[in-house]
């Protein structure tokens, strides 16, 4: 069991407005952590700090592995869906360390890796499509391929189940479970009920962070962690979401 990352007394935010306060967390190679918490509670800020996209205001984030060995799947709404780029190029961009002078190389191994990931996710047929032509689930698959291009030791996913159908959601979590044998995973979700079947531990983030040592968590515990719960039943899967959650996101998620 190798330690990949340590966060010590981290405070972070934007324009000196603190979103996360005094957060500490260690991530080890066999971890599969589900990160939950209300909107604006600091989930995305946490992973952006881990990825070095935001500088800590206070405290420290020590990445003990190479930065390029962290795979990242951003929130879909951060992506410009009308950008003229093909699925294959998006996946290849996951191995960007070869990009700088790529015009001189054949990049055969990189292309093969991209092909095999597309195949593994069952989207080889979409290879030459533009990303704007994809459905939500297809797009998430493409971004998962991109995140896996570098064979990461740590995979960070920000709400990968937004805008996807229930079918793909289940498929995605099973895939992540399979991947968790090979790499540590940090998964942000607003759907506590569903992810708790798959993750090993749960981190509640709402300005502070409470790392709950198991995947079973009671409403009382959540409340004591400052993350009160609400249960919504929709279709076959009961969705347990946080009370403070914004309605818009349910909408995009469930329909």
């Amino acid at each position, binding site marked *: 069991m190798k330690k990949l990352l340590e966060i010590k007394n981290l405070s972070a935010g934007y324009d000196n407005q603190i979103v996360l306060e005094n957060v500490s967390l260690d991530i080890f190679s066999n971890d599969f952590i589900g990160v939950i918490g209300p909107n604006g509670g600091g989930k995305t800020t946490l992973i952006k700090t881990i990825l070095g996209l935001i500088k800590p205001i206070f405290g420290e984030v020590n990445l003990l592995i190479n930065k390029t060995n962290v795979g990242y799947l951003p929130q879909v709404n951060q992506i410009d869906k009308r950008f003229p780029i093909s699925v294959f190029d998006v996946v290849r961009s996951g191995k*960007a360390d070869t990009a700088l002078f790529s015009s001189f190389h054949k990049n055969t191994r990189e292309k093969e890796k991209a092909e095999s990931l597309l195949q593994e996710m069952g989207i080889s047929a979409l290879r030459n499509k533009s990303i704007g032509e994809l459905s939500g689930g297809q797009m998430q698959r493409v971004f998962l391929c991109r995140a896996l291009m570098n064979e990461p030791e740590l995979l960070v996913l920000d709400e990968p189940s937004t805008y996807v159908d229930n079918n793909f959601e289940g498929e995605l979590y099973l895939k992540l479970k399979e991947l968790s044998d090979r790499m540590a995973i940090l998964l942000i979700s607003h759907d506590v009920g569903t992810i708790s079947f798959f993750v090993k531990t749960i981190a509640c983030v709402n300005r502070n962070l409470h790392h709950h040592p198991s995947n079973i968590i009671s409403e009382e515990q959540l409340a004591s962690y400052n993350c009160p719960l609400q249960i919504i039943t929709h279709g076959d899967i009961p969705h347990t979401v946080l009370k403070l959650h914004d309605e818009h996101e349910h909408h995009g998620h469930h329909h």
Partner: protein
Amino acid sequence: MDIIIELFSYDFFVNAFLASLLAAISCGIVGTYIVSRRIVFISGGITHASFGGIGMGYYLGINPLVGAGIFSILSGMGIQLFSSKGKVREDSSIAIWWSLGMAIGIIFVYLTPGYAPNLMSYLFGSILTVSTGEIWLMLALAIVIILFFTLFYRTILYIAFDEDFAKTSDLPVGLFNYLLMILISLTIVLNIRVVGIILILSLLTIPQATANLFTLDFGRMMFYSVGFAFLSSFIGLLVSYFADIPSGATIIFTQVVIFGLVKLIKAF
């Protein structure tokens, strides 16, 4: 046809032809980046801010294009600096530089004693009066742009598509943003003579919109944009010559007509 071939025996026409070709190369490639990355408005700000440099050039008695170059690069940097460090909203920051540049230009032109020659050609372009010296500069720029976009194609593509992800992959995002901003500024300045400050945004966006009707791939879009930009510039040049109407405006008009026709044909 003979009459067109005959035109090529005139130096001014050969220059105009070369200018339209070189403008198509630089604007086609750089414009694809601008459109894909949705920084059209920033480019508009830079374009108009460069008028400050033209006014300054007149006042100081130096080549107005040198002044325009300085102003456009400074405004490009200024827009980024204001919005990233100064906490000014980006569109407001663009508007500030846009109008500041125009204001400085107007004041300098007013202060310049006597009449400012060719002022209209900077505002609305004058492809038939492009000098051989300017052609050489445009050629140098076209070569730099082709080399830069060929050598660093993937880096540019990845940064433009998803800047945050590119940062996590350790790509030199900041450096490339600045280099590309400088290339945008130079492209704008060196093409001012072709279509003018007021109209140059069209060369950076309309051929790209037409290209976008045929492809959703960044690389192909660059090639097609160069093609459409050249086609419209050359047709516009001929029409303006024979009809004796302003070249810059005719080129833009041709671009829009081509875009409209293609869109119409595609609809059926």
